[in-house]
């Protein structure tokens, strides 16, 4: 069967996730539509095969969490921790996303057409995140690897204690976090932003973005800093 529909108004979530973990992996469906998600938690978590899942409506916490290889689209909004710890594949939120979107994602691409809440991309470990709207405070906190493209504004303390992840912001940044700094955009950066915007299906001028990366001054303990950073 090429396409299949699950209606969470009548079918238990566990049935859907079991199908996605077992039958979809065995090739029994390439495309799964999920109706009436109604804010349920853990929809399409832990997928590890290249199935396409379309969630029609608003998803609850951790939708598409731990995703590997699958492509998950949410037509509405996503609750806390969408695509957290994603390994590969793609998660696309057409509405807004709540706090902790893409937290600690190791790979893959998270696209949020609307705004993202606080702590978007916290502890990012190699995934890419493209946000069409704005991100809340403390986004990319301690982000270690990967890239974030923010088409709107950012809240307070963007990129606090950043490691080697790189952030690109088009709008206003309320404040940078400790050890984050603006850096010049190189041709490589412009190409990277252009590629990510293209993958996200968003139309912005890549040259309009600013690059933020780590000063690396927190990499080594400074006994003279007196807790002032």
């Amino acid at each position, binding site marked *: 069967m090429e396409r299949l529909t699950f209606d969470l108004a009548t079918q238990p979530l566990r049935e859907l996730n079991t199908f996605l973990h077992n039958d979809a992996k065995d090739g029994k469906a390439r495309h799964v539509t999920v109706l*009436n998600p109604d*804010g*349920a938690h853990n929809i399409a978590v832990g997928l590890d095969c290249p199935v396409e899942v379309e969630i029609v*409506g608003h998803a*609850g916490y951790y939708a598409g969490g731990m995703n590997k290889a699958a492509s998950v689209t949410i037509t509405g*909004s996503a*609750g*806390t921790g969408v695509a957290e710890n994603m390994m590969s594949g793609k998660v696309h939120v057409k*509405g*807004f996303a709540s706090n902790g979107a893409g937290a600690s994602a190791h790979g893959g691409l998270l696209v949020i057409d609307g705004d993202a809440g606080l702590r978007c991309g916290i502890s990012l470990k190699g995934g890419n995140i493209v946000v069409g709207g704005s991100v809340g405070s403390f986004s990319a906190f301690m982000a270690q690897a990967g890239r974030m493209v923010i088409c709107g504004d950012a809240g307070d303390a963007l990129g606090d204690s950043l490691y080697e992840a790189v952030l690109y912001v088009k709008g206003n940044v309320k404040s940078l976090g400790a050890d984050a700094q603006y850096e010049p955009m190189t041709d490589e950066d412009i190409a990277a932003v252009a590629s990510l915007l293209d993958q996200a299906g968003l139309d912005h001028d890549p040259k309009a973005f600013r690059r933020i990366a780590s000063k690396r001054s927190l990499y080594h303990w400074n006994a003279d800093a007196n807790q002032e950073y």
Partner: protein
Amino acid sequence: MCGIVGLLVKTPALREKLGELMVPMLIGMTERGPDSAGLAVFGNPLAENQRKISVYSGLTEDGADFNWLGLSHELKSHLGVPVGIEIKGNHAVLTFDVAPAIVKRWIAEHHPKLHILSTGHSIDLYKDIGTPAEVAARYDFSKLTGSHLVGHTRMATESAVTPDRAHPFTAGEDFCLVHNGSLSNPNGIRRMLEPRGIHFETDNDTEAACRFLEWRLREGDDLETALQKGFEELDGFFTFLMGTPDKLALIRDPFACKPAVVAETDDYVAIASEFRSLAHLPGIKHATVFEPAPEEMYVWNA
């Protein structure tokens, strides 16, 4: 954890359905708060000289068999004025046209185990231990009418699971507050308020926030000013939802540690900790759904 829900109907016809629309919202928050539940509902105000109090008898020896009619007769003969009474098991709403302090003092002297839940012109308040479904059934929440309400499902973290520590909390008249989160300075707030003659009934952190904000309102602050002072004085994690006779108000702490989502249509504004409590509402698929920002004030007029 804990779950909060709020509903304000804009279409007058929906006032009759307020409770019916809200019960699934409350039950939807069971996983966030399975140990107690409660709500405050605001309806048509009484005449200026009248007041009503919601009273809970669950802590008395007779519990739900409490002799409410006997109480109303005693009150009538003591006060010499008519006392209206509506009884739902361990809960009753008493209506009278004397100063509420007189009634409350008499109740405290003669029935010290009765717990006064709320006082005012417009507010009725229910709260008890049990799952949200059990509490909703106990008090026929689905039959409640009114313009707006504030509800809560509790998973206790800061104080014991008892009916008086369930939410909503009230202070003064026609003001209530529900809380998802935990405050880190409730005792400091208490130490500031108690010398001003403000009396606390429990050791619950939410009560400190409730009494602080009601104190500011009573001192003449408008709601927005009081909430601004709340941001300055209240430390910790919170999503607060508050009700007054003509308003619902929502604020979240600067870290937005506790969730909230709002759905608005031409007919209603609905607030919940999570969307799953809003999913059943009529016209939800076309509602404007958004997440309230931290440190912003959201105030809706009834």
